[in-house]
């Protein structure tokens, strides 16, 4: 079982807060002073979006144990919702971000409520089917450009993205540490036992799906307004797979693991952009090897903080 994370004391919390603000300030200064060029700015944006995707899927797979491989579907819903709002209806970006999250969460409920009666591999296939249905539907709607996709304004910037990532990580970390989070962990460890102990398993599974989908939708808004154009083909099964690799490599059940893996692979991604086949071969090999030889992933279900805490205790 997971060593339960103890609520961080006040000093640690203050340190964490200072760290978060400092990271923001340094990068913002770098951006406005021009030390950080377009290449690295793009890389940062990619990392941020991927962290959002990884962390939102972590809540569904890592914490609640529901194997979802249709996460790109929620990303697509968020991306298209926000894009329609800003480009077609001339609404402000903030409203579009929120709407993207809410609509994606509604889809999460829509998919979650009926399909979550399914277990394990059946659920996986159903979520995969959901992702494909979303993609094929977008493909056939002329209002959003069909296969050619949609032109979107470039509105995502470091401040918005960083804010969204921090808020999301805080919400997910606190949710995991709350009574609700414990219930979700119980569902992951043994659904039958959890139900016998009075945990309303379906409720928590749907909750995890809705919250995960909400953040994936917000990531979709960021994504759409970062890359100038969105096309259905970008939200295929491969995208879901990529997000899955972040979570699996990071360690099922470790939030910091998912964040680390997303960061690491985003950087690798950028350098391998010119060799898409090599990248996919590498990804799939990593996935197979990790599953065969280190099924708990890089971090297992520990968090970064645990490592420091243990070391401090030993010293």
């Amino acid at each position, binding site marked *: 079982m997971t060593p339960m994370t103890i609520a961080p004391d006040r000093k640690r919390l203050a340190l964490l807060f200072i760290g978060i603000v400092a990271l923001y300030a340094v990068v913002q200064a770098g951006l406005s002073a021009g030390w950080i060029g377009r290449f690295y700015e793009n890389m940062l944006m990619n990392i941020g979006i991927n962290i959002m995707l990884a962390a939102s899927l972590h809540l569904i797979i890592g914490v609640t144990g529901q194997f979802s491989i249709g996460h790109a579907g929620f990303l697509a819903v968020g991306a298209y919702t926000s894009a329609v709002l800003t480009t077609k209806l001339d609404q402000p970006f903030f409203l579009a971000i929120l709407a993207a999250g809410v609509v994606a969460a509604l889809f999460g409920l829509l998919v979650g409520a*009926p399909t979550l009666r399914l277990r394990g591999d059946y659920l996986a296939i159903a979520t995969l089917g959901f992702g494909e249905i979303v993609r094929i539907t977008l493909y056939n709607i002329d209002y959003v450009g069909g296969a050619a996709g949609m032109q979107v304004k470039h509105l995502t910037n470091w401040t918005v993205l960083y804010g969204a990532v921090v808020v999301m990580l805080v919400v997910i970390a606190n949710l995991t540490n709350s009574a609700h989070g414990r219930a979700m962990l119980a569902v992951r460890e043994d659904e039958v036992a959890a139900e016998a102990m009075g945990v309303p398993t379906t409720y928590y599974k749907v909750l995890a799906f809705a919250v995960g989908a909400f953040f994936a939708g917000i990531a979709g808004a960021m994504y759409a307004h970062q890359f100038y154009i969105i096309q259905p083909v970008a939200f295929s*099964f491969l995208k879901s797979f990529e997000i899955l690799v972040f979570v699996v490599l990071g360690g099922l059940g470790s939030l910091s693991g998912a964040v680390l893996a997303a960061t690491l692979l985003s950087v690798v991604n950028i350098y391998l952009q010119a060799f898409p086949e090599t990248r996919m071969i590498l990804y799939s090999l990593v996935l197979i090897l990790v599953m065969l030889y280190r099924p708990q992933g890089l971090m297992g279900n520990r968090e970064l903080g645990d490592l420091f805490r243990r070391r401090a205790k030993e010293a």
Partner: protein
Amino acid sequence: MNWLQQLLNGISVGSIYALIALGYTMVYGIVKLINFAHGDVFMLGAFIGFYAITVLHLGFIPAILLTMAVTSLIGVLIERVAYRRLRNSPRIAALTTAIGVSLFIEYTTIYVRGAQPDVYPDLFGDRVIRVFGATTRVDTLVILLISVLLMLLLQWIVHYTKIGKAMRAVSYDADAARLMGISVDRTISWTFALGSALAGAAGVIFGLYYTKIDPLMGLIPGLKAFVAAVMGGIGSIPGAMVGGLLLGLVETGVSALGFSLFRDAVAFIILILILLFMPQGLFGKNVREKV
């Protein structure tokens, strides 16, 4: 007699799905794993058949036999390398590995030969046959004939041979089968070999029917075949055949009604509906989870 023509088309597409679905269902019945790489074995089969016909200048039947032999080896290899170690780990681990294997095969194929499609040689020409007033291409009938033959062969293997008996025993209760002296590992290898051989044959006839093959062609038919297997009740061999045929007919019907753009979505909608209202499928057993 347009509807008869559609019916024939539906049955031929459906029999391809059925052949792939058989591999899914047999493997699932025995190791409880959705073998995601199965669609890619089907793709490899299409390419092996293609090279056998164009490079080795084999005839149609020898090409299919060669393909089936090679894909069955590939299936056994996949099981040995990627799945055997995970037999007792959580289902999620095995499923993730299967997805990994699937993408590995796809992108290694692209890496080796490029992503461009190939066009299958036209073995039967444009000859058409008239059946009760409906015209149909010769290859439609060839597909049908081969699939029926292969399914009969499979039924015979499963019901009347020693290895078939072992397969049924292992899928019923692996531990008891082991106690009775059945080599579970070997039986599982055989299951993968048989399923992959059928997928390979399906690949060749798919190429013949649709003429265009490419390294990512296995994904969608693979998923649809899985839907077919679920529809028929996963683990059930007659279920996979019926499910495949039904799915082929439904898809052809949807296209004929003018919704061809949504043809690919239909399978997934059916899947979700089936899982919700009839998760055991048409021929499956309803298994409850016990503590």
